[in-house]
């Protein structure tokens, strides 16, 4: 059936390159594992059922939901997966929506901007507003690894004056150790190195290298995303910065099957004894979901004298994904 129905636009080998195309857009190359494996099966099933517009792509792909059963559509998706001939790529069914603070386990190619606004109101003291931005670049390496560069900018409110500047730059490496395709479960190990580029005297940086190994895992349990992360922060100079144990957990759920749907979630964030809850929402901003934004509020559960409520979020751009339909 691939030959009779699909090959005329997608080619017999799934490459999307046909001799005399009957359409004006070029379909995704299904033989390119780098592009296809991060996609979850559900998005492909939706593209076949509803046509291109169901996943933010060209209307030249028709919808088959009135002529194929769900089982048949699933069968086609399995056939398309076979066009990627390389083993070892982690399945896109493990590519869960990114929480704001918890590190996700799936490797990504993306740019991120993470703003945070902290507002502390103390009794008989002026309220203070701290702002920070972190610019992040993530790049996959090989089939299962990823490297990340994070550049923070912070602005601290000292009531009478404000100090702003570059914080501590961080470099991280992450590797997906285990990723299953059927029952989505993924475990990754990683390590982050914090470089003391921020001015310690100004309070913008820690003033020491910090070595941060971490483990992160995720699973899809009956339409609920569960993601957890444990990280150990080991500063080279313990006079300047404290050791810390960081533990984060996220539970969330999509509100519809569209790739750019609203996803609601709740994080539990802990650092040593400081605990917080961060309810959040995420939304894809283009039909394909290549551009997405998330907004949350980090509410301290204890140690509130030093910690106020913090508004957090991110703007995300998966730069290898098509932005929107070509036509």
């Amino acid at each position: 059936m691939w030959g009779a129905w699909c090959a005329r636009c997608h080619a017999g080998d799934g490459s999307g390159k046909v001799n005399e195309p009957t359409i004006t857009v070029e379909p995704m190359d299904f033989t390119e594992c780098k592009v296809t494996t991060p996609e979850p099966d559900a998005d492909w099933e939706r593209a076949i059922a509803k046509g291109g517009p169901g996943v933010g792509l060209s209307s030249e792909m028709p919808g088959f939901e009135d002529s194929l059963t769900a089982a048949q559509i699933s069968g086609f998706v399995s056939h398309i997966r076979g066009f990627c001939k390389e083993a070892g790529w982690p399945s896109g069914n493990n590519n869960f929506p990114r929480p704001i603070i918890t590190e996700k386990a799936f490797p990504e190619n993306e740019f991120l901007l993470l703003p945070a606004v902290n507002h502390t109101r103390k009794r008989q003291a002026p309220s203070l507003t701290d702002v920070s931005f972190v610019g992040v670049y993530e790049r996959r390496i090989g089939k299962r690894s990823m490297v990340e560069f994070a550049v923070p900018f912070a602005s601290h409110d000292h009531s009478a004056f404000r100090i702003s500047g570059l914080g501590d730059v961080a470099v991280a490496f992450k590797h997906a150790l285990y990723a299953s395709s059927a029952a989505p479960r993924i475990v990754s190990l990683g390590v982050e190195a914090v470089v003391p580029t921020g001015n310690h005297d100004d309070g913008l940086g820690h003033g020491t290298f910090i070595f941060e190994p971490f483990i992160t895992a995720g699973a899809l349990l009956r339409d609920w995303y569960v993601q957890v992360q444990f990280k150990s922060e080991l500063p080279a100079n313990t006079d300047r910065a404290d050791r810390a144990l960081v533990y984060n957990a996220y539970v969330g759920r999509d509100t519809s099957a569209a790739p750019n749907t609203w996803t609601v979630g709740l994080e539990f964030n802990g650092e040593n004894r400081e605990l917080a809850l961060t309810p959040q929402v995420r939304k894809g901003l283009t039909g394909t979901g290549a551009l997405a934004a998330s907004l949350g509020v980090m509410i301290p559960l204890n140690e509130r004298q030093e910690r106020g409520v913090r508004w957090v979020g991110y703007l995300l751009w998966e730069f290898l994904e098509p932005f929107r339909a070509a036509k």
Partner: protein
Amino acid sequence: MGRLFAVGIPGTISRRKVSAGVLGCWGARVLGCLGAVVLSAQVLGAQTGSVTGTITTTAKGLAPVRVTIDQKVCGADLPDHAIVVDAQGRLANAVVVLTGVKRAAAAETTITNDKCAFVPRVQIVRPNANVKTTSKDPILHTTNAQLENGRTLFNVALPIAGITITKPIGNAGNVRLSCNTHPWMRGWMVVTDDAAVVTGADGRFAIDNVPPGTYELRIWHESLKSAPQKITVTAGKPTDLAVQMK
């Protein structure tokens, strides 16, 4: 005579047939009654007019389209029906619309993929009607319905013969049908609740039961154009327009 009309004989006010006038004709002498019936029939027939005419063009018919795929079902080439014109220049598949005269077309209509062509190529569809797309061909067709601004209303796959898929047309205006597996295929649906008719091979059109008045006559064709014209319909006086499209 006067007494007949005072009673309010059914049939003289509405556009009913003559027999209704006869039924209501009581309480007067038979001869006088028949006379009243004949008079009322003349008044009935003269209360509406009609708009008729012929559409012609000097444009020539087109060369056949080359069939690039599925030749076993479609043939090696197919006639190009973007312009269907006979030796006298009479144009088929032109849609004549009389704006201001509301007329309901069918609430449901069918478009068939038959030997790699949309049949009928051009049809009038009522707003919010259900469009049933079906295929007689044992090959994959996709019926892609697009609005004039390029936006796709729906694109349904018809992988085998005999499947029928129904979609609502909304208030679409002029809808272009194409097929993403057979790019030469074209069809059109003119969505309107105005009185409208599609010309046949003889280029003729006729819109009857038009109340007297002034209307705008628009003619749509997929390849040719003509300016809209104002026409005045008088009861009892037929029009016979000759319209040229370029």
